[in-house]
């Protein structure tokens, strides 16, 4: 299937608005997350430095708790975008009638949801990359003396 056959049947301007809009929201979310984590890590290191070498910084799972909840917010945004794309077929005309007369019954839904699903997947990939960056910052920038024992990442806590 060609990419153009997976896009909503609207003008290119509308499609680019969707891509740029959701892309910008994604970047703002990721940048904000990065800023907050950097601040928290700096604060932890600063506090550890003030106290003594015996003071450990917070566990990474504590520092990352709920930090990727933005993925869920973005998922909601993408679902709304898909629903909005669906209503394009009822706006200004009832072009849904035409979509109901083509042989591929899934095409209408593919055209509504491919773009949001694609944007969400990008968000997921970038978030996982960001998580890797956070873990790397935590493990590499923290002097070993301040590091608590590392037991790996509890993925569920990232969202809660």
């Amino acid at each position, binding site marked *: 299937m060609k990419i153009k056959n997976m896009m909503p049947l609207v003008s290119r301007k509308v499609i680019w608005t969707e891509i740029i809009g959701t892309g910008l929201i994604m970047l703002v979310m990721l940048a904000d997350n990065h800023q907050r984590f950097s601040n928290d890590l700096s604060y932890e290191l600063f506090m550890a430095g003030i106290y003594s070498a015996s003071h450990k910084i917070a566990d990474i799972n504590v520092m990352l708790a709920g930090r990727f909840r933005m993925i869920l917010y973005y998922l909601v945004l993408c679902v709304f975008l898909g629903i909005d794309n669906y209503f394009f077929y009822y706006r200004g005309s009832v*072009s*849904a009638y035409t979509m109901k007369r083509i*042989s591929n019954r899934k095409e209408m839904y593919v055209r509504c949801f491919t773009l949001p699903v694609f944007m969400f997947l990008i968000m997921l990939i970038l978030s996982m990359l960001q998580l890797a960056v956070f873990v790397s910052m935590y493990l590499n920038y923290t002097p070993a003396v301040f590091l608590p024992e590392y037991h790996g990442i509890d993925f569920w806590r990232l969202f809660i």
Partner: protein
Amino acid sequence: MIEIKNVSKSYGKVKALDNVSLNIDRGEIIGLFGENGAGKTTLIKSILNFISYKGEILLDGERITRKNIGKLSFATSEHSFFPDLDGNAHREFYKEHFETFRERRFDGLAEFFKLPLNKPIKKLSNGQQNQFEVILALSQGADFILMDEPFSGSDMLNREDFYKVLMGIIEENETVFLSTHLIEEVSGFISRAVLIKEGQIVGNISIDKLEQQGITLTDYIKENYHYEEDRVSKALENMLEGDRNNE
């Protein structure tokens, strides 16, 4: 052939279609007439499988599914084009999705009506949008062309042009099922008239038969609708009498 067998459809307690049976043969231009709310649109939407119904509708002996629905095209006053796209994009879409798409007919009709194919359809006037809607239905290459009041909002000259084009391009194997209020305008080119009233077929007659009987289509419809000629004068009289009594 489209066979409509004992089709009923209700919206809550309101019966939109009540045990409708009708055959639509190939090569006919059929006019579907009835007052607002009589069930014309519901009947057409049932044929197209857009709504659920009781009964059976067969297209060449088979139930209408996504496999054979391409044999039906549809033009509606609600419009079914993609308003954001231009005519060229529609041509591409139809070429890709309807194997039988008649590109030459599409281009020829667009040229005849002087429709700009590089402008989003939403930017065209209502009359041009109606024209475009009908052009798509005629160019799809369907065996059965269903039209639900496609000229509503179009001016008379615009409609006349269309009737001429319709008569000129429709081929023997193509069938037009046209729902309209414009009885007199279409009476010159339809081959059969179907009347629907309160969800029931109350008339189904060929125009040849009407001519043999020396009845006009308008009279036939009035007769089958039990239209009272003096209805308006009676109502006015009642109103005047009421006013006089109040005085």
